């Protein structure tokens, strides 16, 4: 049973560029959430997708956008990259309606902005 998979593992970009990160949820899960974890901090919620729509959003600018596909996989897009966007980006999946059930996390994508 495959868990949450994310790609790529590492990525280096320069300021002003755009990036796309990808996530495949755990089998049986239909909801994907994205988190940003800056160095030395806890993860911060970016947004959550269910039924191909953004359902909840954290305190992140519009430069952060996402998409969910019919097979439940998801993408996180970040435009006009800033140095402060350097972080570990974590994807988590869960099953909608399974209230209180934990989210399962992938190993993340480490994004470095030069």
């Amino acid at each position: 049973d495959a868990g949450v998979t994310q790609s790529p593992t590492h990525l280096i970009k320069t300021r002003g560029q755009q990036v796309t990160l990808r996530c495949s949820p755990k089998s049986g899960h239909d909801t994907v959430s994205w988190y940003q974890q800056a160095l030395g901090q806890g993860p911060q919620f970016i947004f959550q997708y269910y039924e191909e729509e953004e359902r909840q959003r954290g305190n992140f600018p519009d430069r952060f956008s996402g998409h969910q596909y019919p097979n439940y996989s998801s993408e996180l897009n970040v435009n006009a990259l800033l140095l402060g966007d350097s972080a570990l980006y974590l994807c988590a999946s869960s099953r909608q309606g399974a209230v209180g059930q934990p989210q399962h996390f992938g190993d993340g994508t480490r994004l470095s902005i030069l």
Partner: protein
Amino acid sequence: AQSVTQLDSQVPVFEEAPVELRCNYSSSVSVYLFWYVQYPNQGLQLLLKYLSGSTLVKGINGFEAEFNKSQTSFHLRKPSVHISDTAEYFCAVSDNGNKLVFGAGTILRVKS
């Protein structure tokens, strides 16, 4: 709004000693509480969760936590730690099981 405070940024402890990692939360509604562990260069792994019922929750790797509603705390404990427990531990709260609000983390350093 919900928030989580992890009271210690780092906790050094000798192998086979007991350890407690402290977590306080604030929320205006009933919450679900979680502890996750993160090993270097990895994602988050669930240690244990509190949804309802018994306030003492047992998790993996010998960890347990106690939910204290009056003190709004959810401290993590292990009676005897091992070198392999060295990692960063995150306490998290959710009001609907979806969006998680995390604390800043506590680094547990187990020394031989």
